[in-house]
């Protein structure tokens, strides 16, 4: 019996995020209850997943008591209304739910998330739009990457990048990578022809491979120089669609003195975003037709195109048009489960999904709740390649017992790690260490593990069972 079996999760709101959370949590073995006002949604979910559903208002004590919130370990409110989410969490908290998580999308509320957690007793506030915008910001800072994630309070960075023509790494194996090229990064995974593999020392890097690299954020620029990759600073960005993500993104970009042009078809929305983001240049037009009307020099002066409308197909086609016009960096917003994601492979288009950001956050939290009593609990979880590759961050407690946890204080080369796992980074005293054979794992460390298999909860799970 898994530990997850004892954990009861209650989700209010069966929208996109609610549904995807219900699916993932119930897959991982949690006991999931879903509450939604719409009978249709409720039926839909209870027919598709192994969860129990209640129809009703998620802020009503009666409904919540029926759903057994009092014994719920995790309460997640992801309805369409911020106010309802907060109210549901407050009610659930009073009724005895251990931890409450609310999705808040309104920027005016989400800036005061600390207030909610401190005064209202909410455990976690998340804003998927904001998270998605931060993810795009990281891509803008590192335009060569197709995905950038930060671990351990920004001390360690994960970058997914494609090996293109002219890269000096082509033909070298992983030993050369660190010794001949002297690059202080770690290759955690290689994706070749759609297959993900955890590389061994002898694997040779080929043209067209996608590499997953980890290291301290500062070491990447140096590494790119050594790889003979020219990075270009993004100075001018075009955004299609005045969505919430666009708002966060545009204000972050304007703050860094990037020239941002936003195109929105709806006049009211266009005026609203122009008001909210000073310094932003807003055009009221259809993104595609605006794009067509741009002169060649205008296109040339655009470093990045980011398509963030509510229509995935439109986003992708717009992005493809951008690729045809040779725009350096293209990011499009696609839904997590959209098959359109497949279309982005082998293109320069990176896709970002709000639901992914939200699901990652909650899944890692859910796992950490389960493993809370352990000494080596999960702190965070990140997924790449449509969830096929996971990066898990463990926090080792200081009072961990080396006698029980045999991997402590031993050089990594002597540890028997299962083949589908790789130690991708160690953070000690706020500094990132590239794990080499001689390094040891000590109590108090943050350990980042890269894996293609799923559902591990503790660091010790990655080691072969030693028969004592």
């Amino acid at each position: 019996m898994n530990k997850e079996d004892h954990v009861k999760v209650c989700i209010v709101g069966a929208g996109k995020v609610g549904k995807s959370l219900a699916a993932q949590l119930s897959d991982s073995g949690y006991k999931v209850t879903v509450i939604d006002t719409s009978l249709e949604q409720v039926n839909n979910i209870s027919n598709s997943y192994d969860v129990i559903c209640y129809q009703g208002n998620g802020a009503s004590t009666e409904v919540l008591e029926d759903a057994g919130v009092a014994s719920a370990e995790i309460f997640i409110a992801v309805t369409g209304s911020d106010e309802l989410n907060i109210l549901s969490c407050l009610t659930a908290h009073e009724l005895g739910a251990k931890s409450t998580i609310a999705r808040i999308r309104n920027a005016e509320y989400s800036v005061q998330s600390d207030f909610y957690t401190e005064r209202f007793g909410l455990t976690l506030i998340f804003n998927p739009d904001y998270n998605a915008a931060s993810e795009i910001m990281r891509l803008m800072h590192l335009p060569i990457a197709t995905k950038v994630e930060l671990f351990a309070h920004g001390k360690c960075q994960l970058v997914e990048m494609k090996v293109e023509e002219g890269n000096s790494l082509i033909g070298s194996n992983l030993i050369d990578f660190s010794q001949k090229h002297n690059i202080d990064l770690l290759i955690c995974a290689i994706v070749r022809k759609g297959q993900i593999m955890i590389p061994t020392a002898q694997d040779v890097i080929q043209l067209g491979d996608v590499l997953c690299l980890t290291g301290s954020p500062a070491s990447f620029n140096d590494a790119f120089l050594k790889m003979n990759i020219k990075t270009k600073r993004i100075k001018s960005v075009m955004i299609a669609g005045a969505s919430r993500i666009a708002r966060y993104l545009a204000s972050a970009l304007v703050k860094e003195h990037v020239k941002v042009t936003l195109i929105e078809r709806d006049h009211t929305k266009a005026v609203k975003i122009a008001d909210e983001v000073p310094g932003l240049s807003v055009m009221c037009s259809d993104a595609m037709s605006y794009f067509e009307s741009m002169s060649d020099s205008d296109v040339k002066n655009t470093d990045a195109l980011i398509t963030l409308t509510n229509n995935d197909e439109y986003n992708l086609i717009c992005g493809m048009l951008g690729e045809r016009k040779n725009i350096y960096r293209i990011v499009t917003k696609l839904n997590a489960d959209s098959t359109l994601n497949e279309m982005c492979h082998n293109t320069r288009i990176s896709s970002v999904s709000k639901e992914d950001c939200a699901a990652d956050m909650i899944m890692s939290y859910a796992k950490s709740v389960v493993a809370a009593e352990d000494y080596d609990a999960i702190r965070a979880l990140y997924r790449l390649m449509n969830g096929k590759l996971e990066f898990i961050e463990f926090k080792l407690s200081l009072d961990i017992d080396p006698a029980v946890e045999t991997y402590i204080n031993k050089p990594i080369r002597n540890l028997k790690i299962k083949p589908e796992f790789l130690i991708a980074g160690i953070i000690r005293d706020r500094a990132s260490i590239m794990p080499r054979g001689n390094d040891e794992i000590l109590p108090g460390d943050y350990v980042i593990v890269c894996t293609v298999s799923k559902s591990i909860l503790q660091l010790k799970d990655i080691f072969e069972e030693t028969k004592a």
Partner: protein
Amino acid sequence: MNKRKIIRTLGYIILTLGFLMIPSLIVSAIYQDGDSFEIGSTIAGTLVLGFLMSRVKAPEMKMRSRDGYTIVALAWLIICLIGAIPMYLSGVFESYIGAFFEMVSGFTTTGASVLSNPEYLPHGVGFWRCFSHWVGGMGVLVFVMMVAPMNNENSMHLVKAEVPGPTAGKLVPRMKETSMINYGIYAFLTLMCFILLLIGKVPVYDALCLSFGTAGTGGFSPSSVGFAAYNSYYVEMVVSVFMILFGVNFNVYFLILIKKVKDAFRIEEVWWYFGFIAFSTITIMANIMHTLPSAGQAFRYSFFQVASIITTTGFATVDFNQWPEYSKHVLILLMIVGACSGSTGGGMKVCRVVMVVKSFFTELKHIMDPRHISIVRLDGKKVEKETLIATRVYVCTYFLIICIVTLLISLNNQDFTTNLTAVLSCFNNIGPGFSAIGPMSNFSVYDDWVQLLLSLTMLTGRLEIFPMFMIFSRSSHEKRLSL
């Protein structure tokens, strides 16, 4: 709203006016130069009239926007008509219209005079003439609202009609308290000015008159000699600095008062205002330097004159009519710009100029690419479309009125500079103009009917155009359901 209610409200205003004249009676009693009877009888008559009018029974009715505008316009007219009585009775003025012009000039804080020797005025009447600046600067209605037992519910309409600037806001929830705070700041600054002038060895009576003229950004001097009588760098600097202070949006002082200094510095209009002052002072200084012995002297004259004109006060230390053309042109432009909104100054107001300039650039962008969405920001906040349209209409009407009035008074056969600057000066509530009505001459060059027309121009300028036209518009005369 019915006529009875308007009469009742006007009654309170007239009553307040009666009380406001009492300090003049006291001054007159102190100096004993023979105007106590005139002032005393006017006060008595005013109080009786006001009392009777305020006793008129009126049903409780909601005040609408146009009622507010009508009351404000009527109130200003009546106040000036009554206020001119003691002036006329004193016998210094040739006609009642001359006295009326002087009174309107006082209440609208213009400072334009038909007298060549104001020192011949008896002290009581002279004091009343300067004191009207102080009352008119902050607004008569605002004052009435503060003291009279009026229904405050709909008083916002009155304040909107009287307070200069495109938008009038409350500082605190209650209108009465807002008025009190504004008057408190106003009185405190006036007192400071008075004390500093006394330190500069200005006689008490002159110091009082000068500080009223400075505070209301009016511009009446107690004597025709003007500042030459004190011949003091110090006095001129004190007055310059205080004129500039009274030309600042009073919200700044309120924000400083409630310790929100950061927000106070964020008011964009004030920065533009200081920018205009700095630019004009420096360029005029360079322009007049060669005519004067030292740079210090040039600064003294240019700084004082720039401060005096942009705040629409209209004091003069020097005959700027003799200055080089560039300096004169800068001063004419400053006349139009005027002070900040929400100050005691007049003119078009800095924030309107800023908004018009900004909307020019957004329009330019829009023409270059019609898809471009650009918005006008002031203090970092979006300016609502309605405000922008109102501002544009205001600015257009403003110039239209100047053109029409200039054309009308041209019948009096003065030269173009005189006519244009007379209208600019009256409409913007400044005082002196150029040529025949320069700082060393006065408006007596014009016939009575021109003086009357210019008086109405002053009122129109002080009340920012719309209220004055409300009296004449047909819709406000329409017979409505009344008891």
